[in-house]
């Protein structure tokens, strides 16, 4: 099987995420995670099923890696950064963290491209970065809206 380190790193990443003390409540994290899963799965469907600007390797092991990236790694990575951003008090540090987030998130995608799991057909890196920014903004806007609901129900302060 190619790239077994992928699965090992995924497991370690999940353990790290579970152990990390998250500033957002269980409700907020659940809400963010579900929204991310829905948006990311739709986004990938449009990319490699509808428009075919991405080609995903049909090799079973590599396709499973892509699914794990799509369903587990990418949503949890974004969720982790959203929680980390909340912990950072200063705005300029938040800005730097956001840039690091974009670099790390694209770095993971680039690794999949480098390993021939994903092949770009009519796609360039900045489009991916733009989508991550839009994903982040969409999730934060929706979260703000539902935080008001949680506050009304006295679940969070």
């Amino acid at each position, binding site marked *: 099987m190619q790239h077994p380190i992928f699965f090992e790193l995924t497991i370690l990443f999940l353990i790290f995420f579970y152990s990390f003390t998250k500033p957002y409540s269980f*409700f907020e994290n*659940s809400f963010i995670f*579900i*929204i991310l899963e829905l948006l990311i799965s*739709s986004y990938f469907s449009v990319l490699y*099923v509808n428009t075919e600007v991405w080609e995903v390797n049909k090799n079973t092991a590599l396709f499973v890696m892509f699914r794990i990236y799509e369903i587990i790694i990418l949503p949890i990575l974004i969720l982790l950064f959203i929680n980390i951003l909340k912990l950072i008090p200063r705005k300029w540090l938040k800005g730097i963290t956001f840039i690091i987030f974009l670099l790390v998130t694209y770095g993971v995608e680039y690794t999949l491209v480098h390993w021939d799991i994903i092949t770009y057909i009519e796609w360039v890196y900045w489009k991916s970065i733009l989508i991550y920014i839009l994903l982040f903004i969409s999730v934060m806007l929706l979260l703000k809206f*539902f935080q008001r*609901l949680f506050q009304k129900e006295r679940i969070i*302060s």
Partner: protein
Amino acid sequence: MPLPNAFDANEIFVLICIIVFYSVFFMLPKRIPWSITIILMLFGILLARFADHLMAGPSINFYDIMDWDKYELFDVLLYLLYAPFAYFFLYLYERLHIRGFFIPIFIVLFSIFAIVFEWINVLFGVFHYKNWELRYSVSVYLLAQVTLLLFYQILKHKYNKELTNFRE
């Protein structure tokens, strides 16, 4: 995202079901807090999305949804149907005070209801089976409902705990 090939029976059926299901949803008295309701309804959509993404995708194509074998606009609208479905399941669970021995019976009965509804969907051309049969969906619905119920119990427990902490 492509539009339907033709605006016919399957699209009209989906739209009518959305109107009916959401009307019933808004008319029912609220037994579950809104914060939990929204998360659960999204979770219901997510379970359906996962199932279709895994079993109706290009790699494993057991069935197609709506007019195309691609992710089209009415696929998104179809997923909206799963949200009130998940709510009705949990609403009845709370309303009828299903506990203990009656939980598996309730899950089986609701799965039968889900299977019948899926059969009606197939008749209207919402699902097009390729290497799939209706009886395979039984295990999918059983698993989905158990997962939903477990998630609901976790949310309810956390909700009550947070409420108690806030009041103190």
